[in-house]
Structures are given as C-alpha cells and as structure tokens.
C-alpha cells in the first residue's frame, strides 16, 4: 500500500481492485492458462472498475506477473486469465460466461445477481463493506480451484449443480 493511500481513505474502485488482486492469490488456474508467468487481467473498457484495476498491471503474485488489458466487446477473451465483467445483456453475458467456462477464465463482477448468473466471483456492498459471493459450480466448470480460505470468507457460495 502506498503512503498516499494511507493518508486518504481508498475509493470503492480501489478497494474492489485490491479485492481482485487478493482473489488471484487464492485461485489456482488450470494447466496452460498461465503462459510465461503472466496473468492476463482482461477488463472491458467501459468498466468503471478499470480506474482501480489499471494499478494492478505489473504487480507480481508469486512468480507470476499481472498484465492489465482493456478489451472490446468483440475482442477475443480466449487468452484472458481473468475477465472482469461489467453490466451486459443476458445473452451476451451467457455467451461470455460460456466462452470463459470453456477457456478456464476466472470471471469477476460487481453486479447484483451476476453470481447467480454464473460469474464465479461477484462483489457487492453490505453495510458499507464490500462482500463477495462465489459460484463454485462455475469455478469447477471452468477448471479453477478456489482456496478454501477464500471460500470461507465468501458471503455466499453458489452451487447450481446441486
């Protein structure tokens, strides 16, 4: 944490960006997803979270290095390790989620009900505090392993397969 951040209370986007960074620590990606020790963090350009997320570029988690990448609506997401999803229509969302599932991409959102929809980690506000829920069935379907420690912190674990 930078001294500036210390002095000023972090913004919602900063906190959410920190959450995203911390989520990566507890996720084990599928084989071949991380190439050249680079974790490709993909976010749609229109997403307000990007103001916080862009600070994550170049940060290391273990031997791996986060690469921040803003993508378009039509951009291929196959290469992404992590995909931050902003508000989308249902069809588009299902399509993105389908591709993400197929490619083992960690999907993260901060939109209400998105967790139910199939986003693996969905952040939300509760008593002015950022909480998150995890869709474990999506994660499994994507071939991702989520640390129990992270699971223990999740406000809600969604398991649609049950």
């Amino acid at each position, binding site marked *: 944490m930078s001294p500036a951040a210390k002095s000023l209370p972090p913004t919602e986007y900063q906190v959410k960006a920190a959450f995203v960074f911390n989520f990566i620590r507890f996720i084990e990606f599928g084989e071949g997803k991380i190439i050249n020790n680079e974790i490709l963090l993909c976010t749609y350009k229109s997403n307000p979270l990007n103001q916080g997320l862009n600070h994550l570029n170049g940060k290391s988690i*273990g031997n791996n290095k986060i690469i921040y990448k803003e993508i378009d609506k039509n951009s291929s997401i196959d290469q992404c390790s992590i995909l931050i999803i902003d508000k989308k229509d249902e069809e588009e969302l299902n399509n993105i989620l389908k591709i993400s599932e197929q490619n083992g991409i960690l999907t993260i959102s901060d939109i209400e009900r998105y967790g139910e929809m199939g986003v693996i980690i969905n952040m939300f506000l509760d008593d002015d505090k950022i909480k998150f829920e995890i869709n474990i069935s999506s994660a499994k379907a994507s071939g991702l392993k989520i640390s129990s*420690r992270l699971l223990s*912190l999740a406000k809600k674990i969604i398991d649609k397969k049950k």
Partner: protein
Amino acid sequence: MTRFKPSKLSTKIIVSVILAVAFSILAVTTGLSIFSYSIIKKRIINDLNIHAEIIGSNCQASLLFDDKKAATKILSSLKAVPTIENSVLYDSNGKEFAFYVKKGSIYIPFNLLNTESGDYIVIRHDITTNNEHIGTLYIRSNLNQLYFQIKWIILMMFLIILLSSIISFIIISYFIKKSFKPMEILLSTMNEIADKKDYSIRADIISDDEFGDITQKFNNMVAQIKIRDDKIKEYQAHLESEVERRMQELNETNKKLKNEILEIQRMEEMIAKSATEWRTTFDSIKDPVFLLDEKGLIQRCNRAASEILGLSYNKIVGNNICIIGHNKLQCDCKIEEVMKNRSRVLSNIKIGDKTYSVVYDPIVSSEKLTGIVHIMADITKQIELEENIRQIQKMEAVGRLAGGVAHDFNNLLSIITLYTDSLSKRLKDVPHVSNEISEIKKAIERATNLSRQLLMFSRKQILNPTIFDLNEILRSNHKMLSRLIGENIKIDLELTQEKIQIMADVSQFENAIMNMVINSKDAMPQGGKIKIITERKRLKEGDISISEFLNRDMLILKIIDNGEGMSEDIQKKIFEPFFTTKPKGKGTGLGLAMVYGFVKQCNGHIEVNSKVGEGTEFRIYLPLTEKTEEIKEVTGLIKIISSENINILLVEDDLDVRKSIIKMLSDNKFSVTEADSAIKALDIIQNKNNKIDFILSDIIMPQMDGITFSKKVRELDDKVPILFMTGYSDEFLPKDDIEKYKDMILEKPFTESQLLNKIHKMML
C-alpha cells in the same frame, strides 16, 4: 572363628545391585526427563507454530479482505487446543484485528506480555503474502501439557524403578541363593568341623565356579589339616602317655614324699609327745632323779629332786651333785666310786626319819663314761614292810616250832592220859595213890591247856566255825567279862545297829576277847575304862597296815583301854608266845599269841596301836559273811552199843601211842587190829577174813597220810566208820571237804571217855 553370614552378604549384594539399578534408572530417567522436557517443549512450540501457521494462513484471507469476523472465527478454532490461553491477531499496522481467549482465562495484550516468562510459551507468527507483511499472530499457551507429561514420565520412572527393583531383587536373590549355596555348604561344613573337631568331614562341591574352587581348596586344606591333626594327635597321645607316666611317677614320688612328711610329722609329734611324756613321767616319779654328766654336774632333775633340795630347777642344774646334794643333805657321795668302777653303786642314806636308797647308774657309751643317773628311792616304807615281813616270818617260825612241839607233846600227853585213866581205874581204892593220880591228872590237864594254847597260836588247833552275830555274843558276854575284870574297870560296848555276821569258832572267839580284856585289865591296875567297838567298813589305805583287805567290807572289832600303854619295842613283840611283861609266874605269855593265831586262822588280821601313858587299842579285822548257819537237826537217840564183837582197826605209826590206845580199847572190851602204817592197814582191810567194824587212824603218817588212806578205804568199803586222831589242826584236811571231815576228828590228847563217846556216836 567369626561366623560368616551369607545372608548379610547377599543382602548387601542385593541392596547394592538394586541401588545400582535404581540409580541407573533414575539417572537415565532423569536424563530422559530433561531430554523429554526439551523435546516436549520443542514439540509444543512446534505444535503452536503449526497452529500459528495454520491460523495465520487461514487468517491471510481475513486480513486481506479485512474480515474481522472471519478472523475471530478462525482464532476461536484454537479452543480445540486446551493449552492455548489466548491468541491475538494484529494487522500490518499493529492494530488488533481479532483475538481469542480461552474460557476462564484472561486476555493479555501481547505488547504487554513478557514473552520470556517461564509460565507460558508465546508464539509470534508473521503473516505474509507475496513477501508482504499483512499481519502478526500471537498465541499464548500454558505449560500444563508439558508438566503433565513430565509428571507422567516421573511417575512412570518411579514405577519402572520399583518394578526394576522388585525384578532385580527376585533375580538377584535367586542368583545369590544359587551362587551362595556352595558357600553355605562350605560354611555349614566349617561349622560342623569346628563343632565336632572332625577334620574328616568334607564339603560337597555343587558348582564349578569360584565357589566350587574355594570348596575344593578348602577340602584340600582340611585334608591337610586332618593329616597334620592326626600327626598332632599321635604326638599328643604319645605326649599324654608320657605326661601320664611322668605324672604317675610324680604322684608316686609325691605320695612317698607325703608319707615321708606324714611320717616326719608323726615322728615330730611323737618326739614332742615323748618329750612331754618324758618330762611328765620324769616329774611324776616321786623319787628324786638327777641326770649327771661324766663329772657329776647336774644336767637335769625332776620335780621331786627340786623338792628334796628345796631349790628351783634352774638353781640346781649345772651344780655338782655332791656339793649341792649330798653335802647339803649331810650324807655320803659315791660319785667318785662310780667314775672309777663304771658300774652301779648302791648306798642307803638317812635323811630325817626317811631312808633313801641312792642308785648311781653309769651311762657308758663306746666304753666311755658319758653320764650318771642318780636316783634316790624312798625306801622307808619298804624297810618297814621288810620289818613287818620279818616279824611275820618270825611268828610263823615260832608258830611252826610251837605247833611241832605241841604235836609231839600231845602224843606224849595222850599216852600219859590213857595210862593215867587206866591206873586211876585200877587204883581207885588205894588211898594215897588216888590223890596222887588226881594231881597227875591236874598236871595233865594244865599241860593239855598249854599245848592247846600253843596250837592256837600256831594255828594248828581244830576249829569248829559257825556263823554268828558278833554283837549278840558281845552283849551276852558283857556281864561275865565285867565280873571277870573287877569293879574298878568299866566295859562299854559301842556296837553297830545291824548284825555283824562272821564265821568263826564261837568259843575260841569268846576266849580271844577274854584274853584281850584281861590284857587291858592288867594294863590298868588303878582301874579305868575299856571300850569294845564294832564297826563295818570298806577298808581304805590308812585304815590297815597290810594291803590284803583293802577295798573289802570288813568287821573291825576295837578293844580300847586308857591304861599304861606300851612302848614300840613291846608292841613289836606283843603277839610272840611266851612274851610277857608280867612278873614271872604271873602269866604264861600265851594269851595274845593265842589271839593272834586264832585271828590269823580265821583269815583275819590283828593290829595294836599304843602309846605309853595314853592307853592301847587292839583292832581285829575279820571278813564278813552273808551266809546264815544251817540248823542241823539231831536225829535219833543215843544208843548205848555193846563194844563186844566190835573190831576196831587202829592205824598209828607211834608205837607208844598205839599201845596206850590198844590198852584202853581192850579194857573197854573192843577187839583191836593194829597197823603201824596206812599201807598195812589197807592190806588188812583187803583180807576178807578180817572183819573191821571201825577204823581209828592217825592223820600225819609216813608213806601214806590218814586222808589218802581213808579215800582208799572208801573204795573198798563205803560204810565202815573212820575216826581220825590228830595233834594238829585241820590243815591237812582237804579244803573242799572240810565239813565232811570235821565230825571225823578227835583231837589229841583225848581222854578215854572222849574217845568212847566219839566211837559210840559214829557207830550209831
């Protein structure tokens, strides 16, 4: 020998081993405990670290996502570990993020906690991610677990020690018991050997270990001891026998020595006793005895010697006997004569009224004179006795002479009497002749009396002793005696109360008393008093001058007068016949001689004690008799027998006497056969042709006396009466049969009528 105590040794071993085991276990377990302590502590710390790691790891997410609730929840999972007291999680800024406190424990902030405290273990765990410090976790744990475990270890240790000790004890006991068995056997064998002193006993070898070796060595040693012991015993036996032999020798020597000592002691005692006895004896000798040396000096003397000299023993010893003795006693000393002759010398000396016979006996040793024994024997009494004996002998001689004279005189008188009787018968009608014959008869009677008195003195008279009471006789004669002696002399009788029985011829006794009373009367011409005293007395020394009657109960008849008395010379001769102090013709001098003879014949004694001017005392001593006189009954009547046809055998050796008797018997119509000896008379009796009716025999005859003759006659004829004639007393009669012969005696001289009476009496 100190007893070996295996139990103590085994106890020591057991205790030592157990202690060693226990100590080893203790050391090991102590080390182990310490080691365990650090191990356990390390493990606890390790565990805590693991817990911290897990909790820290688990809290990573909570810290990263600022989830205090989740963190608290995670921390609370520490309650599963009861030793953890509390835990605090700090964030990267050091701010308390979450904490856990065990129920019942207290919350202690870790910045305040002394992590070095021994009571707790505090673990600090830094929580990082991607090398970034995101928080710190503190966990405080108590040490209960540690202590609990350590306690368990210690308890287990003690249990192990206990168990080990017990097992050790059992194992070691078993081992020791087994191991020490040979030792015990050895020890008991030792004790047995010591008790019995028997070295043939051996210990059993039951093991092949060192004890077995020891036992074997011991057995070898005992065997050697036995050999040595046997040798010692052999030596000892030899020594003992030697000692015994020596002891025996010693004992024998000792015994001999003891006996010798005893003998010496006995000898010493004897010597001492002898010395005392000698001294006592020496002093008890009533005669003075002097022991002189060869020069006549007195070496010793007895008490009598001191008394006679009137000097003490010490003053006498060392002096010359002649100077201190003889000169002092004014008598001769014959010492020089003894020295010269070296033979006994005797001499009589007179000191005062005593006569001493001095004996000088030389002591000669190796032909040398070494001393002289000088004894002075008082012979005064002896001389007196000799004088008495001489007197008695003289009286005996006179008596015998008188008796002899009287015997012959009696024979002569017998002849004269018988012929005078014959003449008197024939010439009774011739006037002058009958008167002359009468005078002859008177003279014959006087001569007969004289002869009788002589016989009485010479104790040859014939006595007719009877038992009578003297007091009775004296009383009955008192008047007659008083008349006899006249009025100017009084006779007093002092008689004993009880009877005094004596055996004597009563008439002769009366005669003797009369003679003495007359003798007293003659000693008192001016009148006076005569006392006649009778006394019974057991005689003691001093009562009588002769010893014959001492200690016998005797009669003492005393006739005492207070007349003129007699000198000693007269007293000596008073009983001699024909001794008289009276003018010639006034007395015969036979009175007291007759008394003397009579008393002697009665087995008595007479003494006279008189002093001139004081009077005279006669004492007659006679034996008492307890017998009483038998009263003889006179039976039958006197029968005048006819002398015709009576043949008398006359045995008489004196022809003249024989002739006179034959004449007298023939005159009285007796037929007479004569024999001049007893042997001839026996021949006559043996001749059957001779009828002998009576035998008249003399007693004293040559060849065969009358008594022997009478015995021979009795062998031939037991009936013919025998009458003895004798001019003597009865001394020829056998003493045993004196009574038997008493009535068969006719004393010479006898008258015709006396003979005829006797013959008649005996023919009845």
